[in-house]
């Protein structure tokens, strides 16, 4: 079996994944995505060979991953995750739309194209409201808007200083969660394990210093995670959920290149091994069958 791994930087996650791959008999090649050149028409000596049974994407950059994996998809190269899943998870508007279409419970969300429309949407949702960039991670540039003064100031700043990606306003009702949220790991439609991320700050992201502890997978968490994963196209995913005092468990977002360095110890689950199991299954039986056997 030949596995290519596209990566940007060797974080603790990549080191664990590479170590797991080293233990397997597969023929593995690591490809630094900063050096990738793809030839679209003609041949290029700069292009790496993509003669693999599967390409495992660990790119840290959404746009870089999407560009490379779209080309590989057009060439019929199997990837984990595929470009369509990256796109569905990397753009929050797309994710929310798919979750809603699949009747997966999520906080009330609005998308607006102008500051004026955004202000109306914020007032309709009612304060506080959370504004997020449509593309982004690790809690960056996520803002809680507590009143109209803050809304007007933030919208003006975003309109004036933001790049074109900030011209779409993604707004969500603030969920007054109990100083924690839930991060669940899903492989091929199967919920592997979950953690609570605790922080006194309303942004409960481990990249922001939240602590972690095991979260038992209840039937409700399992059901929501499977449905959320299915809604975005499946694969290796991290589903973020919040406990809403009014509406119960809600899915906030789905991550397509999951980080798990703080989750192996509290859950006792060998997440990198389960991820590589799935990658190998895709290489062996294909994407659809890999999901059928995992979810069974």
């Amino acid at each position, binding site marked *: 079996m030949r596995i290519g791994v596209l990566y940007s930087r060797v974080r603790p996650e990549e080191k664990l994944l590479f170590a797991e791959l080293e233990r397997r008999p597969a023929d593995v090649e690591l490809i630094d995505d900063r050096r990738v050149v793809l030839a679209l028409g003609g041949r290029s000596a700069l292009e790496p060979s993509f003669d693999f049974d599967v390409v495992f994407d660990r790119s840290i950059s*959404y746009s870089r991953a999407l560009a490379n994996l779209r080309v590989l998809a057009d060439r019929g190269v199997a990837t984990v995750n595929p470009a369509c899943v990256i796109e569905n998870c990397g753009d929050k508007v797309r994710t929310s739309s798919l979750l809603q279409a699949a009747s997966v419970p999520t906080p009330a969300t609005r998308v607006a194209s102008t500051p004026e429309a955004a202000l109306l949407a914020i007032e309709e949702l009612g304060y506080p409201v959370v504004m997020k960039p449509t593309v*982004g*991670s*690790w809690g*960056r540039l996520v803002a809680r808007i507590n009143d109209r003064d803050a809304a007007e100031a933030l919208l003006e700043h975003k309109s004036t200083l933001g790049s074109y990606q900030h011209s779409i306003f993604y707004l969500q009702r603030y969920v007054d969660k109990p100083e924690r949220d839930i991060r669940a790991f899903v492989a091929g439609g199967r919920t592997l394990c979950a953690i609570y991320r605790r922080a006194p700050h309303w942004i409960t992201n481990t990249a922001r210093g939240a602590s972690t502890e095991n979260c038992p997978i209840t039937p409700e968490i399992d059901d929501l995670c499977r449905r959320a994963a299915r809604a975005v196209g499946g694969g290796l995913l991290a589903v973020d959920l919040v406990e809403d005092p009014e509406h119960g468990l809600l899915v906030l977002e789905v991550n397509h290149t999951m980080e798990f360095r703080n989750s192996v110890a509290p859950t006792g689950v060998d997440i990198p091994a389960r991820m590589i199991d799935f990658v190998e299954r895709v290489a062996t039986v294909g994407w659809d069958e890999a999901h059928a056997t995992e979810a069974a």
Partner: protein
Amino acid sequence: MELQTVDADSECPECFESVRLEAVMQHEIVQCAGCGIDLEVIELDPVSLELAPEEEEDWGE
């Protein structure tokens, strides 16, 4: 696949503090204990460190 790792002592290119590297691989990100900056292991033989690329807006999970 055989992972190449090394143990080595190097120097932070930002603050010039010594940096102890243990079982690092090429392109691994390490943190300087002196100034806290992220460093990338560019080469293993001999070991060389550079400032890690700055975080970009579309980076993440």
